[in-house]
C-alpha cells in the first residue's frame, strides 16, 4: 500500500515539477564538485544543515565580529565556484543547481558576491 502510494506520489510530483519526465520524478540536480578536497563537514550533514550553519555564522561575524569561522559564506564560494563561470550561481552553479531543484530562493546574492576571488578575500580565514 505504502509503496503504491509512493509511486503515485512520485508520478504526481513528476507531472507537476517536470511534465517532460513523467514518472521519473524531477530531474536530479547535477551537483558538480569542481575543486577537489574536503567540505567543512560530511556531505550528508552539509546537505541537511548548511543553512543553519550559515545563519549562525552571519550573526557571529557581523554582530560579534568573529572572523575565520568554519562555515563562512565566502568560504563556500571560494571552494564551490565553478571553474568556468567563477560563480556559485548560473546554470549548473553549485548553490543554484540544488536550490532550483528544491525550490529554494535565496536573497543572499542581493548583497553577497557569488563569484569567487573578484578580489582575494580575507574572510574565509583570518591569518593569525
Amino acid at each position, binding site marked *: 500500500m505504502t509503496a503504491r502510494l509512493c509511486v503515485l506520489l512520485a508520478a504526481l510530483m513528476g507531472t507537476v515539477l517536470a511534465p517532460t519526465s513523467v514518472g521519473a520524478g524531477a530531474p536530479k540536480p547535477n551537483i558538480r564538485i569542481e575543486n577537489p578536497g574536503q567540505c567543512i563537514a560530511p556531505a550528508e550533514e552539509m546537505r541537511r544543515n548548511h543553512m543553519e550553519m550559515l545563519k549562525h555564522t552571519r550573526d557571529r561575524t557581523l554582530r560579534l*565580529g568573529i*572572523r*575565520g569561522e568554519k562555515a563562512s559564506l565566502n568560504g563556500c564560494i571560494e571552494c564551490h565556484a565553478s571553474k568556468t563561470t567563477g560563480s556559485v550561481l548560473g546554470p549548473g552553479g553549485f548553490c543554484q543547481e540544488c536550490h532550483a531543484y528544491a525550490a529554494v530562493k535565496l536573497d543572499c546574492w*542581493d*548583497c553577497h558576491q557569488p563569484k569567487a576571488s573578484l*578580489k582575494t578575500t*580575507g*574572510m574565509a580565514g583570518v*591569518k*593569525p
Partner: protein
Amino acid sequence: MTGSQEKSRRTFLAATVAGFGAVALAPGLHLIALSHAGAPRAAGEPASSKVRWGMLIDTTKCASGCDACVKACNTENGINETVADARQGSQWIRKIDLKDQKTGRTHSLPMLCQHCEHPPCVDVCPTGASMKRADGIVLVDRHICIGCRYCMMACPFKARSLVHQPLTEQNPEVPRGVGCVESCTFCVHRVDKGQQPACVEACPEGAMVFGDLNDPKSAISLRLAQEASTQVRADLKLNQGVRYQGI
C-alpha cells in the same frame, strides 16, 4: 527628501561645525598616518569592548577639492554603481567645505559615520539592525535591516545612505545590496585584519589617524592628549569616535 530640505540641513550642519571653529589650530603638527591599527584579531575571537576604535582628522591639512579619501572608500567598498538620480548615490564619506560667516575663514573636511558611543541611529532602529559592535564600530546588520530609513533621519551627521537599485559588482568582503541602509564601517573587514581604513591609508596629507581610543599609548590617544580636538555637535553628547582638529 526635497532639494531645499537637503540644502537647509547641510547648511545647518555646516554652521554648527563652524560654531566650534573657535578651537585653536595646531600648525606644523604631523599626524602619523600609517601606524598600524592593531594586531589582527585571532580567528574565533569576538570584538572586545577593551578596544574603542576612533579617528582623528586634522582639517588644517585637508585641502578643499581633494577627494582622495572618498575615492579610496568607494574603491574599497565597491561603491561603483551609476545612479539615475545623483541624490540617491551612496556616500559613506563625503567632503564638505565650511566657511565662518563672520571671519570668512574656510576649511574642508571629510564627514563620515562618527561612530558615536550613544548612537541615535541605534536608538531608533525598530529591528535591531542598527547596532554598535563591542569595539565601538557602528554598523547596519543588513541581514535584518528592512530599509525603513529611521536611522537616516536620526543621524545628526547625515552619514547614512539607502541603496536604491540592485547591485552586482560588490567586493566579496563588503556585501551591500538594494533596500538596505548602509554607512561607513571604519572598513571593519580591514580593521579586523589589523589594517587601517582605506581613507586613512589614502590621505596624501596624512591628515587622518585611526586607532584605539582606549589605549593611552596608541598614536591617536597620544595626539588627543596633547592637542585640542573637537567633536562635531558636541552639545548632543554622543561622544563620537571621530574627532576633528582645526575647526
